[in-house]
């Protein structure tokens, strides 16, 4: 078996070396959740990436994409990983059309580097990077976003064009480089959060926003869940148009609310007063700063991360699950995270959260990462509505089940 695998890896190495300038055997420490790749290929161009994918198709190799590894431990381990496609060399800003507020970037580009380039022209991609160093492609593949999701959404809302390499090695584009565009299906949204199971993302075009001239972070500590819920609702329904409203809790008692306001200096000043008054009415001490508090946009601590999607009012329910070893961050957009230490009984907490969310809020809880022992006893994804449609779409895009096989819901 090992000899057979070795021969396959050697064949793959030989064939891939002919089409890609940077190919080498995989190292044990490069395992994707423990699954060591046979070969690591780092194409320098989209064309080279297409050749890698075509060669993998010819040889029937399973392919797993890798960006900056910030979320490589998310999801389930791949059933096979013959080739790890490293996007590190696909790191160019292809075009920043500042006048059109649009940028096209390669998949392996560091989102932090992208932000620097855009900032030179006073612009930004309005997505937070909760894990610094994450790439453009990885951000889309995991649908990663932070507090700004309240006003600007997630990758699905900001990707306006996408180039992917299909399982058969062909290059396919959808969307374009204009914001307003309804020509054809929007594969940018389909690929957002698809975990490398539908194709290799090589290039993306994003809608941009101007960097606001001023910003203010308004924070206050709250004593109990009811207060927190009411404060969030008060800010949410005010006309202040916050860019973000976050609630964090790192223990059973402490609860902190943070509101981000962005705009012109005069506007931010006036709105800061408005929001401070709303929060102060609850009798709490309100702080204002131009810089984010240190917890802003970070995932809660813990060895298990649960990703929750539910209506904003589910906050009250989630807060009931704060027990020892459970930290929480919640965006008023209707999305949050629970961070669990091993002592917090991850499997039990997950089951209780799912029952409450599903029953009371039509919400969902997905485990992003957790220790192997926990992973083996739980269902990472929970109930998946429309799964049969998903399976059929996967079968169309990847009929031989070679793209990150088993990484995604229901073994897709």
């Amino acid at each position: 078996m090992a000899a057979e695998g070795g021969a396959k890896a050697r064949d793959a190495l030989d064939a891939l070396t002919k089409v890609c300038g940077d190919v080498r055997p995989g190292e044990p420490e490069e395992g994707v959740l423990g699954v060591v790749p046979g070969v690591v290929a780092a194409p320098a161009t989209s064309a080279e990436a297409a050749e890698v994918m075509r060669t993998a198709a010819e040889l029937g190799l399973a392919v797993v994409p890798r960006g900056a590894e910030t979320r490589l431990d998310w999801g389930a381990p791949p059933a096979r990983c013959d080739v790890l496609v490293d996007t590190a060399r696909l790191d160019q800003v292809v075009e920043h059309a500042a006048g059109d507020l649009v940028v096209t970037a390669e998949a392996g580009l560091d989102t932090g580097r992208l932000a620097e380039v855009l900032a030179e022209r006073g612009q930004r991609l309005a997505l937070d990077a909760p894990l610094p160093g994450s790439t453009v492609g990885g951000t889309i593949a995991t649908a990663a976003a932070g507090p700004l999701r309240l006003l600007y959404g997630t990758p699905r809302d900001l990707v306006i064009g996408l180039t992917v390499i299909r399982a058969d090695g062909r290059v396919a584009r959808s969307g374009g480089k204009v914001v307003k565009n309804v020509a054809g299906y929007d594969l940018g949204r389909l690929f957002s959060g698809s975990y490398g199971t539908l194709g290799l993302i090589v290039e993306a075009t994003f809608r941009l926003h101007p960097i606001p001239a001023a910003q203010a972070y308004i924070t206050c500590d709250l004593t109990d869940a009811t207060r927190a819920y009411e404060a969030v609702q008060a800010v949410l329904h005010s006309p202040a148009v916050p860019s973000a409203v976050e609630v964090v809790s790192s223990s059973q008692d402490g609860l902190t609310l943070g509101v981000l306001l962005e705009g012109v200096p005069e506007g931010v000043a006036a709105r800061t007063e408005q929001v401070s008054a709303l929060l102060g009415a609850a009798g709490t001490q309100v702080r204002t700063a131009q810089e984010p508090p240190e917890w802003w946009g970070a995932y809660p601590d813990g060895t298990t991360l649960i990703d929750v999607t539910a209506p904003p009012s589910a906050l009250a329910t989630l807060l009931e699950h704060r027990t020892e070893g459970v930290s929480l961050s919640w965006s008023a957009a209707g999305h949050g995270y629970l961070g669990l230490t091993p002592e917090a009984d991850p499997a039990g907490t997950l089951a209780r959260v799912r029952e409450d969310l599903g029953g009371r809020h039509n919400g969902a809880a997905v485990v992003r990462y957790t220790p192997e022992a926990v992973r083996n006893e739980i269902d990472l994804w929970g109930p998946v509505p429309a799964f049969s449609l998903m399976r059929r779409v996967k079968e169309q895009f990847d009929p031989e089940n070679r793209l990150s096989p088993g990484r995604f819901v229901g073994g897709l």
Partner: protein
Amino acid sequence: MESPALQALARRCERLLGTEAVISDPVRLRTYDCDGLTTHRATPGLVVLPESAEQIAAIVRACAEAGIPYVARGSGTGLSGGALPRTDGVLIVTSRMRRILEIDIANRRAVVEPGVINLDVSRAARPYGYYFAPDPSSQQICSVGGNVAENSGGAHCLKYGFTAHHVLACEIVTPDGEITELAAGGPGYDLLGVFVGAEGTLGITTKITVRLTRLPETVQTLLAAFGSIEAGGTAVSAIIGAGMVPAAIEMMDALSIEAAEAAVDCGYPPGAGAVLIVELDGPAAEVEHQFGEVERLCREAGAFEIRVAADDAERALIWKGRKSAFAAVGRISPAYLVQDGVIPRTSLPGVLAGIDALSAESGVRVANVFHAGDGNLHPLVLFDDAEHGAAERAEEVSGKILDLCIEHGGSITGEHGVGVDKSRYMPRMFTETDLDTMQMVRCGFDPAGLCNPGKVFPTPRLCGEVPGFRKGVHPLVEQGKAEQF
């Protein structure tokens, strides 16, 4: 309705829905022969008026069993023929599904049936200080289900985005006739993201959860008159370049102003080569500051008159000319085509010069109305349908305008959709592989190809085939019944 299969289906639908919800009388069928794109017509084989998701599922199952194609239709206001019926198929009209099921202010969302009128959602939410942001110009009559199918935009999508950004979940009937829910942000693929804007080719939506948006504290609107389109374009670039995201920036050229004046007497400044409507909304302190900037930038770009709306009535007056522009063109031309190309905003001067040249060369007049903020052009190509060959010439100019848009890196449609009208232009914008890849999604949802067939894509994909590794010729191709890429 000569086909025995359709007759059998009609009887089955009558049993399912009651006779009064099934239309098979030829005269009544003809009233459904087109949507907002009246140049394409086809009398449906059968029309059904279901009242529930279960009824739609039953109809779809019956169609699937009989191999009969079906098309869903909301209010029929679409401008690309997305709801054009099939003579050999069923038209499923959702106009009886008009209940607003829930207004949930705590969660800033509403749940509605697909036939609910766009504006009615906002009317229901307004007492609570909320509204439904997508505002296609047909919003007084178009349905939310249609908005979902077309991913409708509107004048204010520059700031607020399209329907896709405001739909949180859809209950759908799949082409298998099953009822399922697609939601944003849940586990698994973002099927909702691809369903919205798929022009009814992936299934029929039966219940929609939409996001409600807080009504802005302040709205400020101005109208600026310029000597030329170029000057107006300069103002647009300056406003965007200053880091502002107005709620809307609309432009009209001299010919469309002339038409609007003739139709609704909107009283725009005489002698204007272009007018610009700029609307800012949001927190009062923000808007006040930025509005002054907009005025200044318009003057710098050469605006010779600026009118600021003092109240809602004056704002309505400013918008009146713009909102009536399409219909108004009827006053200056017996017939016209509405185009819907998109270009990168910075290409505006080059593309407008190109349209002028096309117009001069062909002798076909073109009035320009556009969502200038996002580069969405609505050139109105004027012609006299009584004149022999005029329609063809207009169609040719219209197509060349799309070529111009594509050359400049734009799109063939910004908000009207592809439908039947533009499927033939899709290969100009996308490669065969691009289109083939999109249709993989369709094959996943609708392998039999019965759900609104013949829309969006110029050539249907054979769903049984494994992509990329075709061995031999598909039997349908051999028989000359289908084409393969």
